[in-house]
């Protein structure tokens, strides 16, 4: 109905532009309504309607002083409204130089004919004279209190080393007449004379993985890699640490004798011969069954025994500590028995008598003589056992041979087997295989099995070039806090 009080300022001339668009539907001005009864509705309370007014009326008890103190009641409301109105009129007079309703339309509006040419002089109105503003208190407070004037900034009046600089300038001016210039200028001039803006900037070198990067003959005689050091004294280069450290020959050996690219067997052909395909299937089956068996083993271990403990077992468990006395008694009996017949202590051997020593010595000698005699006899008899001896030797030889072969085979296996290079062992990814019904009839229908990328990766691991690793687990450092936004709250019915 009425223009809100906040929109008042655009009645001013300055706010004209704002009015351009809405000039057609400008709401009736408050002055027109002043005559009418509804002018009361101009203020916010009135806008709310009679219900709000009634609410205002019965606010607060009147039997207390507090109730009377408020400027309330119907008279008060009337007074407030009149005050508002007068204020508004005052504002209009101040801002627009009179009541807006009384002003001619030409003053308030104009016809929008696009961008007006600037030459057209705007009718300027003198701004109403403002009373001279008093300085704000804040500024006054911030004024320096001291009577002593602040020190002057000397640099604002004189340059440091001014005299020296001036002399130098004069000196060089004199020199310039002769044709001599300071060093910097001389160099600049020389560069200009050489013709060009200094050394030409090199184009940025292409990186190692740039698709257009150049290559050269690195194994040739004159390659750019060795060029800077070519022809210099090796002793000098070594002492100045410009010579590259030689790669130890130990590093030229490969960590595994396996070939870099292991070609898949004939069964892995896209259109394999029957027999080879069957073999491959068999191998794959073996791998698969082994894997299954291991899985089952783990599951069997993890399985909970289905039978709950019997009542007897439960009872026994509950009586566990209570029946101990009897056993203790038994133990005590045993102890007593032990006390009755204690183990006989072995007598410490005393010093041997001379006789004993002599006898022992004699016996030792006799035993030695007997052994020697037996050995001699055996040797003599061995002459007649030559065949048996030879056979024994042969057997031993054969046994050694067998062991050697075994060791050799194991060594070869160890060499080709992937080594253990870390916490994890190398795990072979089973053979790539296509079942008989998956085999393609033609090249067009072929669905590749496995991934070359994984094959390469596993090959590197198998050849001990990288250690098998697990992907690092992602651990969250802080707990995730879930918050439901009020504006996006899920509706639950």
């Amino acid at each position: 109905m009425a223009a809100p009080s906040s929109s008042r300022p655009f009645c001013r001339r300055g706010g004209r532009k704002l009015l351009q668009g809405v000039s057609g539907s400008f709401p009736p001005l408050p002055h027109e309504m002043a005559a009418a009864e509804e002018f009361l509705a101009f203020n916010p309370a009135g806008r709310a309607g009679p219900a709000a007014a009634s609410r205002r009326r019965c606010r607060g008890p009147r039997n207390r002083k507090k109730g009377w103190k408020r400027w309330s009641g119907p008279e008060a409301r009337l007074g407030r409204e009149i005050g508002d109105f007068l204020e508004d009129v005052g504002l209009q007079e101040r801002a627009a130089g009179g009541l807006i309703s009384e002003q001619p339309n030409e003053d308030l509006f104009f016809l929008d004919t696009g961008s007006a040419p600037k030459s057209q002089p705007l009718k300027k109105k003198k701004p109403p004279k403002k009373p001279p503003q008093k300085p704000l208190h804040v500024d006054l407070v911030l004024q320096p209190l001291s009577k002593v004037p602040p020190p002057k900034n000397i640099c604002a009046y004189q340059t440091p080393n001014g005299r020296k600089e001036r002399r130098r300038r004069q000196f060089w001016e004199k020199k310039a007449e002769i044709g001599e210039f300071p060093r910097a200028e001389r160099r600049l001039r020389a560069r200009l004379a050489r013709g060009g803006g200094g050394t030409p900037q090199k184009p940025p070198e292409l990186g190692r993985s740039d698709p257009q990067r150049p290559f050269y003959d690195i194994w040739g005689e004159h390659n750019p890699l060795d060029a800077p050091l070519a022809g210099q004294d090796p002793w000098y280069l070594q002492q100045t640490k410009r010579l590259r450290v030689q790669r130890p020959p130990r590093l030229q050996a490969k960590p595994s004798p396996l070939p870099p690219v292991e070609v898949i067997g004939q069964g892995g052909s896209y259109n394999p011969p029957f027999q080879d395909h069957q073999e491959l299937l068999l191998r794959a089956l073996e791998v698969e069954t082994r894997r299954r068996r291991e899985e089952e083993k783990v599951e069997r271990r993890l399985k909970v025994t289905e039978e709950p403990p019997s009542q007897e077992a439960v009872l026994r468990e509950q009586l566990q500590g209570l029946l101990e006395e009897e056993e203790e008694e038994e133990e005590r009996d045993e102890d007593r028995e032990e006390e009755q017949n204690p183990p006989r202590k072995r007598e410490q051997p005393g010093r041997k008598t001379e006789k004993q020593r002599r006898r022992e010595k004699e016996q030792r000698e006799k035993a030695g003589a007997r052994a020697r005699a037996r050995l001699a006899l055996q040797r003599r008899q061995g002459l007649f056992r030559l065949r048996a001896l030879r056979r024994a030797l042969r057997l031993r030889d054969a046994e050694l041979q067998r062991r050697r072969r075994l060791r050799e085979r194991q060594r070869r296996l160890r060499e080709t087997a992937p080594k253990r290079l870390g916490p994890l062992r190398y795990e072979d990814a089973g053979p790539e295989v296509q079942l008989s019904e998956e085999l393609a009839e033609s090249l067009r229908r072929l669905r590749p099995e496995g991934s070359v990328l994984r094959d390469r990766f596993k090959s590197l691991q198998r050849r001990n070039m990288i250690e098998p690793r697990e992907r690092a687990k992602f651990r969250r450092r802080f707990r995730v806090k879930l918050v439901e936004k009020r504006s996006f709250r899920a509706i639950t019915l």
Partner: protein
Amino acid sequence: MGGLEKKKYERGAATNYITRNRARKKLQLSLPDFRRLCILKGIYPHEPKHKKKVNKGSTAPRTFYLLKDIKFLLHEPIVSKFREYKVFVRKLRKAYGKSEWGTVERLKDNKPTYKLDHIVKERYPTFVDALRDLDDALSMCFLFSTFPRTGKCHVQTIQLCRRLAVEFQNYVIASRSLRKVFLSIKGIYYQAEVLGQTITWITPYAFAHDHPTDVDYRVMATFTEFYTTLLGFVNFRLYHSLNLLYPPKIDSQAADELKPAEGKEYAMDSESYLERLSALSASLARAVAPTHEDEVEVDEFPVEGETAELMDAKKKEQEALEKHKKLFEGLRFFLNREVPREPLAFVIRCFGGQVSWDKSLCIGATYDATDPSITHHIIDRPRLDKQVVGRYYLQPQWVFDSVNAKLCLPVADYFPGVLLPPHLSPFVTEKEGDYVPPEKLKLLALQRGENPEEESEEEEEEEEEEDDNDKEEEEEEDESEKEEEMKLQKMEEQKMEEQKTQSKVLPVKVTAGKVRLEDKQRLEQEQQSEEKRLAIMMMKKREKYLYKKIMFGKKRKIREANKLAEKRKAHDAALKEQKKKNKKARQA
């Protein structure tokens, strides 16, 4: 008893090794940087013999390096670059955080970079060393060049890999050094002989990517980073060894044929060159114009005995190789759009064939499908409606099988819609006594110049004609075989008898002299077998034992092979029966 107490773990194995973490600290690098450095420098972890000693009494599984290796790493200039890079990243992050865009620009301009050229030279002191280690590099480059250009690894790396792979393929074509191809379910295996070194590599099929998650992409990218550098230098050298220009230029004649306007639909100007190179249809420009040298004949020196035989064998081998290189010379292929273009074009061009494809399929098509001079049309669909007279329509396997067999195989087995013979691996070489599948036997016979094909075909025809009498016929066949054997045996017996009579019957009277029929070969054989028997008799017991074992092993092998062959026969028979049944069912 003086002297200091020996402390544990201060000498021996414990001092030769260093754990990964200590090595990392010694080099002042983060773990990823350390791993990268080790890969680039070719330093691999070691498994010590006595882990507990090395681990100072602990049995915790750790990764160990040789201490000397790590000391060697300390001299590497790249280490300081890694540290600089770390500082650079820190500064950059700070600048970003403060929104200092000028600083960001400046920092980015001065980004620390490093090159791997000196490492290549250090790890491969000679060119041959590099060639020997090319398998990995090629496989990796071919693999990375098929990666999608999104995420996972840098686009630049992928592009570089593609460029290097294409360059190498062009070299192989120019030098005709491809030897074997094998289409497996995993990818395509190639083997080439470059300057006397056999190089094997694997390429994935196009569009065959499932990106496995259990693969460390960062490690693979680091390997690739090194291998691209290596392959680039190797390519340069290889091109120069053939007098080709590097970076490769398409021959001016061929370039004219290709018409520059044609490429515009496919790629931007900057890319079209590589695309045209990767089409593999044009020959490369040479630095020095190729002069048609008359074939250099090797001077022949008179040699005797075994060396002469060896020389002969070598000569024959050489001739066979030359023939193999010119396998497809003079043939003109056309690839239908459903066949894998790149591997086929590569293989055909490697053996001197000319190849083209539909203009809308790829850049670099030189002739049209309607060209009357086309001899072989490669097609991979059951049938084609409009067939042109005067050319073979073949399935792509023919090309690969022919290359492996070193001769142009008979085309009948490879017509469209025909059940293909199995694709045999050229990398498998059967030893004596091993089971050889019948397909391979057929192939070997073909290589020897025989033609078992016709016989078998005739047989098949006969069989088809006489469905019912099949069994009888087989029996007959068997009988005929038996008869032959019998005849042979009889002949032998006769001869033996003759000999016996000659030795037993005493000459009572003088008769006219007969020309004694001496079978020289037989005598020789007998002598040889006799010698062998004697040698066996003279063997020491130990050796005899070993010999018997070896012989037993051989026999077992043969037995197994026979078993397999029988199995195969049974399988084939079952298949045939089924076919017949199907046929009958169809007829009925």
